[in-house]
């Protein structure tokens, strides 16, 4: 195969994958700017005519949407902080040290994924009521952290495996302590990987409905508020599209920010 053909094939594949991800988002975005009467016209065009922010405005003004968005951001932020704080040291330990029960520990991490949250719902809520965590954002963040940790640990383990231990040793010969070597050498190199773990954690927390619904009344997160109203219970198509758009856009922006901020701050690039 010639180089040109290979490049064309690659471009085709990239376009295909890109379209696979982007097409639904674009369609939802277009539909959320369409008026209701047009959505129910048959046949229906793809491009809104005229453009309308009527449904989106209804959504923004609906009680609790802005507050719930803020709650979602706080929960996601807390979850990322907790998951990295707990997950990164665990991942580091798994990648650097051989200790008794290491394999068992790795399996046990995945074991937490075996229990569907539905079964744990009632006992979890009872415990949270007793501990005063019920209906608090911190409580929801704890549950999201528990859900995100297995993947956070697995991702960070493989990240630290890729950071040569020799570099830390070199730092230690130059006067760093173990902790300093980790903080000043291993951590900055591992940051792109940690950013990936953070993005993953963010997406998980942003989309999580079940725990957020059971454990909150006043402090609902956005998906708990929105999915009930437009997903399971059903709603006219225009609200579904508006809600979908409203769920996607902040997430996209935040994922971009995490990537940019974390990566450019330390001047490293993702390969």
């Amino acid at each position, binding site marked *: 195969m010639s180089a040109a053909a290979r490049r064309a094939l690659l471009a085709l594949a990239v376009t295909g994958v890109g379209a696979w991800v982007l097409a639904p988002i674009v369609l939802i975005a277009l539909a959320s700017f369409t008026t209701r009467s047009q959505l*129910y016209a048959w046949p229906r065009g793809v491009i809104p005519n005229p453009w309308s922010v009527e449904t989106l405005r209804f959504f923004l003004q609906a009680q609790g949407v802005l507050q719930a968005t803020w709650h979602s951001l706080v929960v996601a932020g807390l979850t990322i902080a907790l998951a990295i704080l707990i997950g990164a040291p665990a991942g580091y330990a798994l990648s650097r040290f051989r200790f008794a029960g290491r394999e068992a520990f790795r399996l046990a991490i995945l074991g937490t994924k075996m229990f569907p949250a539905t079964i744990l*719902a009632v006992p979890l*809520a009872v415990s949270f009521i007793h501990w005063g965590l019920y209906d608090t954002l*911190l409580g929801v963040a704890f549950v999201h952290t528990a859900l995100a940790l297995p993947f956070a640990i697995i991702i960070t383990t493989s990240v630290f495996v890729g950071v040569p231990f020799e570099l830390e040793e070199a730092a230690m010969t130059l006067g760093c302590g173990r902790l300093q070597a980790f903080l000043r050498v291993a951590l900055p190199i591992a940051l792109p990987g940690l950013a990936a773990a953070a993005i993953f954690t963010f997406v998980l927390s942003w989309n999580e409905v079940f725990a957020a*619904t059971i454990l909150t*009344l006043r402090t609902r997160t956005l998906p708990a508020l929105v999915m009930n109203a437009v997903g399971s*219970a059903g709603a006219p198509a225009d609200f579904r599209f508006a809600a979908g758009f409203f769920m996607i856009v902040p997430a996209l922006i935040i994922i971009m920010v995490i990537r940019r901020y974390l990566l450019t701050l330390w001047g490293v690039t993702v390969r």
Partner: protein
Amino acid sequence: MNARSIALSLALVLTALGAPAASAPVQEITFSSTQLNPVQEQEWARNTLLKGFEDEAGIRVRFVPDTAGPFIDRLLAEARAGRGTVDVAGTLHGDFPLLAAENALRDVAAVLRNLEARRDRTFIADLVRAGNINNVQTFVPWMQATYLIAANRQALAHFPRGRNPQAMTYDDLLQWGENIRQATGQRRLGFPAGPSGLYGRFLHGYIYPSFTGAQVKRFKTADAVTMWTYLKQLWTVTNPASFRYDFMNEPLLTGEVWVAWDHVVRLLPALRERPNDFVILPSPAGPRGRSFLTVIAGLGLPRNSPNPEAAERLIEYLTRPRTQVTTLQGVAFFPTVREASGAVPTGGLRVMAEGVAAQATAPDARTALLPIGLGARSGEFVPLYVDTFREIAVQGRPVADVLATQGRKLEDLYRAMNAVCPPPDPQERPCRLE
């Protein structure tokens, strides 16, 4: 880590810890409900229905709509923890036995007596009776609903000649679908057989009792075989896209479907959008009468409610005849007190109200109630009927075989939960199949 990121995380932690501590200056009660959940209904409930109560009583109501799973889990958790946040719980009557079994609710018999002592409202006796579980009154009837047929006016021209749409039989429906198909070349009967559609209700509450006289008891009798043979034919004139319809108002509005069966609330948006284009017809009658489901929503008082007196005031407000008419106009749930039925709404709702009355007062009408007493396994009931439908009508498996296997599962379910047959079946515990 630099100072900025540390400050950012600290700020996040502080707001998270601080947020729930903020306390309201006025009294606030929490009203958790599985009803009025769709987004527009939520907004209506907050801005119209509950606003009236807030202005009058000076009590703020936090309305928390949920799906049934989290709703029940929350009430059970609060009952077990001995500490509650929910003051009023509103849901379908089928959820109450589960809550009553865990002792999560207060007996509302006294509340009901106080309400009737006001002499401005008379609760419909059947609805009150549905809330009586082992001599404990678990709920005050709040709203009721049913399912029926909406048809595009263009379709009426194709209704079988010499027959009356207001007294439609299942044979008429089949012929109607066939006539439409011949005239337009399209299959334009529609059912909500999508993932969140309510087609299962049609199976167990409408067509089964209309053909066999029972929802559960005669699941695998010869009458049931006749019914399934009929249903297979009906699907040859039904729009195949029915498998993705959840709410029939949308295909009715687009014109993909001309004749649709669904829950009143799920048909109403079409009538509100274009009230002159649609008619509402009673559900069809079969050899054993015109069976239809009555759905009852009730209001219960959780045992650990932090504000029981304010909660009772909210129940008084919601069951007031004037509020019940507002509810009918707002979300098409029908009143549970006799005094409210006199008020005549207008437009699409009037069409709907007439259809509901025509169905309820038909000479061959038979009321079916949602099955209760299946406890934690309540969720298995409807899928049994839908699976039976899939196997027979979609996969084309032999009717008798499928009914035998599915019938066994149904009987096992009732035996395991020691549950009583749902009306119009005979009162029998556990329910056994013929």
